[in-house]
């Protein structure tokens, strides 16, 4: 194979225009030291033309080859090291996951807590459980039974019990007076009053 042909192929590889045959030719001549120096020169010339900074003497390929040649036989230890590295990777991945989850949770918490705090700040007066929030508290509207959530203390003076003792009777009086005390013939206020008696 002529030098000219080889240099042409090298040039083609440089310009990224080599066909498969040319690439094979260049690769098979890889051990040729003259070829390597030519390659090196071409690289420098190209870098100069593109105004790129390049260390002309940096022959990474030979450096890597030399390093590989000097590598001692430590093949027996390698798997263990690999295992540990994987564990390390897993640990890193896990900690990232935890961090992300914790972050999301903290974010959500702060999002939820915000309005709650705002609500508390705005309306410190709401001490009695809101009946609209569920049937559990509705049970508190029947005398004798106290919803578990609503029962805080049985103390005479506690605000919850003050309302609990009175509101059912008030609601009942309102509903029954509307249903029966006004001469109304409609069944609707009666149904309302009956629903107040339901458990």
């Amino acid at each position, binding site marked *: 194979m002529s030098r000219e042909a080889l240099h042409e192929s090298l040039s083609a590889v440089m310009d990224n225009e080599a066909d498969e045959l040319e690439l094979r030719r260049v690769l098979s001549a890889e051990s040729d030291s003259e070829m390597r120096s030519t390659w090196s020169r071409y690289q420098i010339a190209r870098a100069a033309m593109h105004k790129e900074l390049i260390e002309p003497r940096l022959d990474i390929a030979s450096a890597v080859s030399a390093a590989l040649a000097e590598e001692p036989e430590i093949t027996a230890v390698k798997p263990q090291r690999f295992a540990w590295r994987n564990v390390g990777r897993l640990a890193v991945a896990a900690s990232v996951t935890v961090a992300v989850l914790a972050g999301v949770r903290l974010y959500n918490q702060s999002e939820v807590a915000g309005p709650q705090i705002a609500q508390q700040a705005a309306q410190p*007066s709401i*001490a*009695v459980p809101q009946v609209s929030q569920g049937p559990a508290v509705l049970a508190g509207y029947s005398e004798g039974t106290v919803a578990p959530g609503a029962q805080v203390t049985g103390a005479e*003076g506690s605000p919850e019990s*003050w309302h609990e003792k009175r*509101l059912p009777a*008030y609601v009942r009086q309102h*509903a029954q007076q509307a249903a*029966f005390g006004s001469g109304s013939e409609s069944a609707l206020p009666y149904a309302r009053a*009956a629903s107040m008696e339901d458990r």
Partner: protein
Amino acid sequence: MRVIPLFVVLGGWLSMPAFAAEADLLMQRLADAEKKQSYQGTFVYERNGSFSSHAVWQLVDGQQSRERLLQLDGPAAEVVILNGKIQCATEDMASQVREATPWRQHQLELEALSKWYSFQVIGESRVAGRPTVALAVRPRDQHRYGFELHLDRETSLPLKSLLLDESGQLLERFQFTHFTPGSVEPADVEGGADCEPVSLAVEQKELTSTKWRSDWLPDGFQLIDSDVRPSPASKEPVTWLSYSDGIARVSVFIEPLDGAVVEDARSQMGPTVAVSKRISTAGGDVMVTVIGEIPLGTAERIALSMRAGADQASQ
């Protein structure tokens, strides 16, 4: 709610005078029909936290009207009403009713009502297997709820009533599932064994001149009744004031706190809201509780407007 978009779509031609007039006519027929029609049927009542079904019989014979209501699920609550007064009731159903003639009879007075509500026919419908006409009753301000009535074509009685809040959310549903006009036997309106005669609390003869009045009420609300009773939890007297605009009703309870430290409270049971506000007076703090089928904001405003004073506004 699907209803509101329908309102909007039909709003254009519904506002035509002919339809408004038809709505008024229907409302008048409803007002007339409620006391003249014998019927029997079953209906359901639904609100947030409660669902129940009931049977009803009404027998109108000349000037006498007898009505029996029986709950069909859960406790068999029963009430028999003769000419608007309770004859008998199962326990608790009428425990808080007192025998009294309200100062103003609750009646559907269309002319007054149309100041606070607008009535419009929104189309044909079908309830309990019967043809009905749907009527939108919309409030003219934000201080009361609107509703949707479905009136029986034949008798003009309301077979379905949906109470809607300001955003069109359903607050309660009253709806017949079976309805038969006429054909009610006298035996149908007799109370069962558990229906005990009601001994209504006798009205105190001396005029309980309540020293409480309201500084502000929504337009159209009038004081229709008042009373002073012992508190359900103590011996303190509780002033009760009842207001109505002809449809919606509001009760105000005022109880002396007697030095107790009690927080304000609010709660909602379907259409019924309860707001408690602490108010300071010269004679110590009182708790004002407003209960009614009105928006929360209106109830709060009424609670805050209660004043102790000799100059009773409307008595």
